[in-house]
């Protein structure tokens, strides 16, 4: 028990004093390994082998694809079309932001990357239209969480890496829950806009304008079709689909829209290395942390603890939701998958909880965790865009957290929402 306390304690104390999560998890793991004589040389071997996995290469490639499409101006084109479509409604611009983020979720697999792409477009124009800046930042941050629920998704790639559930099946499982969450975020956006009298845009898109905007955006709209289509037609693995998507976005940006300069491409490549390294820094050392957890007997103790609390699946799922939501305040999605998820995995069979459904459910909880401070990666991005500290923006984010939690409960207790598509496509047998 002391072993568990030291391992987790060291990890949390280091994060609390402001060390990067990657450093904290690495140091805690090294402590666990050395102090309990688990073989210190596993540090370097694990570092390389946790990263060098073909399925994980999908992460940088999906990031690169999103960067290229965003720098190529495709996010702007999609948003123009969606604003014409719904801009006239009360809170039209905010609702357009939610829909655009949901759509961008089908292009990008990263919440913060989506928040940056969508935020740059919507936040300035929302502020100009009279929306409160902190509200604008919250709308974008919350709906950018959809990026890790709607495929492609870094969280699903990592979950698949940990549990060996097919990433392709997980991707399919995320589609309906992602749309459900989009509806919940859209509803709360509408309610707040109505109450604060955020009016819609004056201009109305007539059929001709709409068609033109649609035509302008068609290459962006095709991107998710190509990504998901190539996976589900059985042509490509998720990693290959990511690679195809990279070259598709390069082609569209360079040859069709002529909007990608050499400099843009280089910037995208650097941004890709950084964004993926921020994730992989945690992955590289978190693997050792999970091993230490298992070796030190923490997992067995936790399993017994969970079974002692309740034997009902209903209560078990509620417990998981609560634990993941609380963890989401203090940790990022990837650390939670490595540090918290292994605690619950061994008891899933006892409660007859399906592994794919479980992955979708916890990912929804992780998406909410991206907007709950102090560690709120999406909110951090949008707060920077409006140049305000995180806690000032946080006041506006709570309604989205609450509606997110209601959505999470729906997804938790209606497993069919997550399982129907993968089963219908015969990609998964529960």
């Amino acid at each position, binding site marked *: 028990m002391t072993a568990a306390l030291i391992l987790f304690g060291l990890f949390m104390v*280091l*994060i*609390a*004093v*402001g*060390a*990067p*999560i*990657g*450093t904290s998890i*690495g*140091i805690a793991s*090294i402590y666990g390994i050395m102090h309990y004589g688990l073989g*210190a*040389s596993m*540090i*370097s*071997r694990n*570092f*390389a082998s946790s*990263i*060098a*996995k*073909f399925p*994980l*290469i999908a992460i*940088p*490639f999906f990031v*690169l694809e999103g960067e290229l499409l965003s720098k190529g101006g495709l996010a702007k084109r999609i948003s123009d079309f969606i604003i014409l479509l719904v801009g006239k409604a009360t809170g039209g611009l905010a609702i357009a932001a939610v829909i655009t983020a949901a759509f961008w979720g089908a292009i990008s697999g990263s919440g913060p990357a989506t928040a940056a792409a969508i935020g740059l477009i919507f936040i300035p124009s929302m502020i100009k239209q009279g929306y409160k800046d902190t509200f604008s930042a919250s709308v974008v941050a919350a709906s950018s969480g959809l990026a890790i629920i709607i495929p492609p998704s870094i969280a699903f790639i990592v979950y698949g890496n940990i549990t060996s559930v097919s990433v392709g099946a997980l991707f399919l499982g995320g589609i309906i829950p992602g749309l459900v969450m989009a509806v919940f975020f859209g509803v709360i956006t509408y309610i707040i806009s109505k109450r604060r009298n955020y009016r819609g845009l004056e201009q109305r898109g007539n059929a001709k304008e709409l068609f033109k905007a649609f035509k302008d955006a068609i290459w962006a709209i095709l991107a998710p079709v190509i990504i998901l289509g190539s996976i589900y037609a059985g042509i*490509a693995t998720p*990693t*290959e689909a990511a*690679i*195809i998507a*990279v*070259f598709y976005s390069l082609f569209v940006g360079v040859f069709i829209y002529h909007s990608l300069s050499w*400099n843009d491409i*280089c910037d995208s*490549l*650097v941004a*890709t*290395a*950084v*964004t*993926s*390294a*921020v994730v*992989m*820094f*945690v992955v*590289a*050392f978190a693997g050792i942390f999970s091993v230490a957890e298992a070796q030190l007997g923490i997992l067995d103790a936790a399993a017994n603890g969970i079974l002692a609390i309740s034997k009902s699946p209903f209560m078990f799922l509620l417990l998981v939701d609560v634990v993941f939501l609380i963890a989401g305040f*203090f940790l*990022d999605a990837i*650390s939670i998958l490595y540090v918290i998820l292994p605690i619950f995995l061994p008891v899933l069979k006892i409660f007859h909880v399906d592994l794919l459904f479980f992955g979708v459910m916890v990912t929804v909880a992780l998406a909410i965790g991206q907007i709950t*401070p*102090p*560690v709120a*990666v999406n909110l951090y991005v949008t707060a920077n865009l409006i140049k305000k500290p995180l*806690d000032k923006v946080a006041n506006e984010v709570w309604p989205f957290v609450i509606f997110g939690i209601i959505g999470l409960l729906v997804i938790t207790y209606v497993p069919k929402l997550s399982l129907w598509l993968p089963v219908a496509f015969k990609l998964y047998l529960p």
Partner: protein
Amino acid sequence: MNKRTIEEWLVIIIVSVMAVLGFGNVLSRYIFHASFAATEEIEINMFVWITVLGIAIAFEKGSHLGMTMLYDKFPTWLKKVALVISALLAIYLFAMVDYYSIREIYKDMTFFHARSDALNVPIWIYTIGIPIFSILVFEKVIFSTVRNIKSLNRGTK
């Protein structure tokens, strides 16, 4: 065009090579029905390299995930202590990784002569990227820590 640093050029080149190799592999498998899976080996090892380089750049840009809620409330001297501890731990962490990597490389070169599965090249060729590129991690950790402490000093004046 802004000037790019050496680590930026390195990731630009390596990520491009990874993408081209990956695309070539996809094409060859589905058009020519011939797979050269050996490229997978290069890709995954390059992925390790760009991760190390990306970690370095992220230290410089301050993009790593973390929590500053408590840190922000620290008095200046405690902030400096926290910055230094955090930097020393990051250096210790990569020093450990390097130490054991170099030991493995040494053993591979002198005794095991281990070769890779697909391309049959000596494994140390891949492993050696970790200690080499992590020099940049050390540099960026020190650079960013000094910069942050300096800006704290300026803030208190």
